[in-house]
């Protein structure tokens, strides 16, 4: 019997993005880290890109697929490493959603009080850099809290937190710039395309 199921365009997109994220994740894990817990987190560029272009549902699928499949490939499935990776991914995505909603609320209040009205939510939403900083800080603190709560419940661990957060901010800015350049490049191409073929819209 042949198993047959139909796939949509969205499924293909999720698969493509997840494959990209898994590849980056595995390449990254091959490099040694100067300090335990500090990684460039370039796989999160894909998650952030997905979040900003296609919304949180697609981003959630992509990041869950990345965490599960790359842990299966690296042999860390259901190990503490996997648990930390999963909690980091979930923490960062939920804080991204929270940030988006907060800035949307901020936009609504601005529109209430301004006479002319800011017509576009795009003006008040943060760009990729802001989101990347939020994502990397929450990723780091989520992992840190899990590590502290489950594996090393020692108050001395908190001495490490400021250093980790410093690196999270710096690496967040870097991955934010990468994401922003990707998105800008893509939008520029889309706009050029639509200018070339005005009938297609």
């Amino acid at each position, binding site marked *: 019997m042949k198993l047959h199921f139909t796939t949509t365009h969205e499924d293909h997109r999720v698969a493509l993005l997840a494959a990209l994220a898994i590849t980056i994740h595995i390449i990254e894990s091959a490099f040694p880290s100067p300090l335990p817990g500090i990684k460039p987190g370039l796989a999160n560029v894909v998650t952030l890109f997905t979040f900003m272009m296609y919304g949180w549902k697609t981003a959630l699928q992509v990041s869950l697929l990345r965490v599960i499949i790359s842990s299966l490939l690296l042999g860390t499935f259901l190990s*503490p*490493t996997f648990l930390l990776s999963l909690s980091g991914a979930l923490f960062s995505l939920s804080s991204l959603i929270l940030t988006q909603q907060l*800035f949307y609320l901020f936009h609504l209040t601005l529109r209430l009080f301004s006479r002319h009205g800011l017509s576009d939510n795009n003006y008040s939403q943060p*760009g990729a850099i802001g989101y990347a900083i939020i994502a990397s800080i929450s990723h780091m603190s989520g992992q840190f809290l899990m590590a502290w709560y489950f594996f090393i419940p020692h108050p*001395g661990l908190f001495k490490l937190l400021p250093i980790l957060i*410093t690196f999270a901010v710096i690496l967040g800015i870097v991955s934010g710039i990468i994401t922003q350049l990707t*998105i800008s490049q893509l939008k520029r191409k889309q706009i050029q395309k639509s200018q070339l073929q005005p009938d297609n819209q």
Partner: protein
Amino acid sequence: MVLYKSRLEVEMAIFKPADVFILLSACFLTAWLYAVFWFDNAQQGEADSLLIQLADNEPVEYTLSKDKIITIQGHIGPSLIEIKQGKARFIHSSCRNQFCVFHGWLTVAGDTTACLPNRVSISLKGTLNDYDAIAGGQ
């Protein structure tokens, strides 16, 4: 106030106003973390008891609230351990190197010192650290 002229310009901008706001908050958060966890010693774990372990025996627990000098008969001779004002230290040991004595006061929960020749180890216990770590991973 018009920050951007067109929609295209909004989408091409590297830094948006909200980004600057988030970046500044992140810097403040980091500075606050340094202030709290590095320059405020009150955060450290309070110790409330002293554990003394001789060889492979079960550790014996002493409260830190009473000042006391304890004599432990180790493998090569006696060790003297002093408890004073919530701190503890070795004041005498029968070993040659006297590393345990030179270690000085144990003050924070989790602090540990040991005299290996005499097979005596002492550590401070707080309410938070029932164990050091759980190892795992690859």
